[in-house]
């Protein structure tokens, strides 16, 4: 084991963990104020149950020695996952690092169902999803599964995290259905500074996501770090130029979105491409997402926070361009089209399609099964009130005006009545 590597991976793991609260701010700022807490909680809550099932079962399904499709139960309950070396770091630390990826991936899906999915149903969904969808896909690429054998390149999770989450997001948006106001009223972000704060913290955490995926503190981490700086910078520059050329103004929400798109695009390529290629990839990567965002808003698809446009198209573009720009001189082995290996582009494309199909299909089955035992979305009246009050019994921005303290005796009644109690006699106050 190597103490420098251990130190870097400890820091990286904490950085990636910070991305989930960062995502909460990014998403939370984009919704209406009546759903601010609910939307932030959809990301935040993944830190609990998802992390627990990851330790109990998910890690084993993804990383225990098994077949081409899935791991095994050898590491279930963290059996045999201790302080012995896994590469140059303790096995336990590797499990934690991978756990932070497992946490943020289902949280990404929440952007497609924000402002109308019942919180209980969402909770059940992401907890099952991380075992049924995320763990096998992670195994295919990083756990010695068949995509790794095919030679697919996915440095930090372009397909495993982003295409995977976006495919689930597309299906979830269709199954849960659009918000009742979608397409009828303007639905605007309630706190754009939150969106920018979230984007900034995501970028910060992403240095752990990408450079940490080197699993060591060496040259590969440095390359991935540089590319994680340069690619989003190029996407942001490119996005700004498109805005200006189209005669528009440079927007804050656009800039925050561009940073996330750039980060997604470089994720699969971070440790495989030259820094100049990262700039090229970032710049090219702006285009599909930019126009998909504009087009999506004109369709009936209420992918509320554009998970498909940002993570799906960004992830797919990144995965495919990894097959173009990968160079042995930088990657230490893998070559793409520019390195004289055009076949890599097809391998990358195949990996995207396979992940897309599996994640979409399984997500559909999971949601339909869940719908048999619980409603997936809240009623129209509750949707009008907002999920902060109906599903959480809290408000993001309350002044406390008119709040009447419920005495201990009544409070047991209040909790049993879930979210509302009728006031007897109407005007008794």
């Amino acid at each position, binding site marked *: 084991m190597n103490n420098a590597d251990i130190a870097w991976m400890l820091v990286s793991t904490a950085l990636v963990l910070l991305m989930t609260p960062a995502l909460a701010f990014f998403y939370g700022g984009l919704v209406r104020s009546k759903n601010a807490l609910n939307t932030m909680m959809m990301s935040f809550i993944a830190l609990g149950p998802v992390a627990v099932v990851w330790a109990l079962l998910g890690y084993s399904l993804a990383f225990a020695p098994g077949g081409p499709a899935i791991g095994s139960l050898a590491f279930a309950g963290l059996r045999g996952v201790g302080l012995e070396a896994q590469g140059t770091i303790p096995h336990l630390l590797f499990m934690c690092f991978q756990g932070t990826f497992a946490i943020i991936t289902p949280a990404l899906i929440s952007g497609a169902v924000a402002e109308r999915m019942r919180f209980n149903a969402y909770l059940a969904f992401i907890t099952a999803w991380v075992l049924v969808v995320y763990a096998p896909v992670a195994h295919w690429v990083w756990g010695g599964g068949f995509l790794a054998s095919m030679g697919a390149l996915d440095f930090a999770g372009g397909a495993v995290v982003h295409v995977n989450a976006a495919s689930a997001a597309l299906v979830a948006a269709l199954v849960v259905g659009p918000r009742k*106001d979608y397409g*009828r*009223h*303007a639905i605007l972000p309630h706190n754009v500074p939150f969106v920018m704060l979230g984007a900034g913290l995501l970028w910060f955490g992403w240095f752990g996501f990408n450079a940490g995926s080197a699993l060591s503190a060496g040259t590969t981490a440095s390359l991935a770090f540089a590319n994680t700086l340069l690619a989003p910078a190029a996407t942001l520059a490119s996005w700004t130029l498109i805005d200006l050329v189209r005669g528009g103004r440079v927007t804050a929400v656009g800039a925050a979105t561009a940073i996330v798109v750039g980060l997604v695009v470089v994720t699969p390529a971070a440790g495989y491409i030259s820094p100049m290629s990262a700039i090229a990839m970032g710049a090219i990567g702006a285009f599909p997402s930019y126009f998909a965002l504009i087009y999506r808003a004109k369709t009936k698809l209420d992918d509320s926070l554009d998970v498909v446009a940002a993570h799906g198209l960004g992830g797919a573009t990144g995965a495919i361009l990894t097959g173009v720009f990968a160079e042995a001189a930088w990657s230490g082995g893998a070559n793409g089209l520019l390195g004289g290996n055009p076949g890599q582009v097809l391998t990358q494309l195949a990996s995207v399609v396979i992940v897309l199909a599996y994640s979409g299909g399984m997500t559909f089955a999971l949601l339909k099964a869940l719908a048999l035992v619980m409603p997936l979305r809240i009623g129209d*009246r509750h949707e*009008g*009130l907002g999920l902060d*009050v109906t599903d959480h*019994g*809290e*408000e993001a921005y*309350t002044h406390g*005006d*008119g*709040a*009447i*303290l*419920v005495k201990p005796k*009544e*409070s047991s009644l*209040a*909790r049993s*009545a879930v*979210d*509302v*109690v*009728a*006031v007897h006699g*109407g*005007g008794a*106050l």
Partner: protein
Amino acid sequence: MKLIVAIVRPEKLSDVLEALFHADVRGLTISRVQGHGGEIEHVENYRGTSVKMALAEKVRIEIGVSNHFVQPTIAILLSAARTGEVGDGKIMVLPIEKIYRIRTGESDQDAVTPVHADSNQSL
């Protein structure tokens, strides 16, 4: 001339504005208010503190209209602001002594007849 004051649900405001503008009722003022009516109250919990929220968020709309606009405006409010649940709000109609349009000094009927910025002045 009447002053129509409507207290409506915030989530119905877009529907109400759309319907009013469609009927060419274009002069109005809104304010965010809190009120108490007959609706059920939400219980909120913050750590150990449980509270009943006795005031609900509402939007107050004020519209000064000439006499022949009173009934159409009320009809629009009644349909566009309605959900059928307790808490849909109230409409109050008040007499007005005088109305002035500040820009021109016009009064009464002339002052509440809509003008469009683009029809009588260049931008």
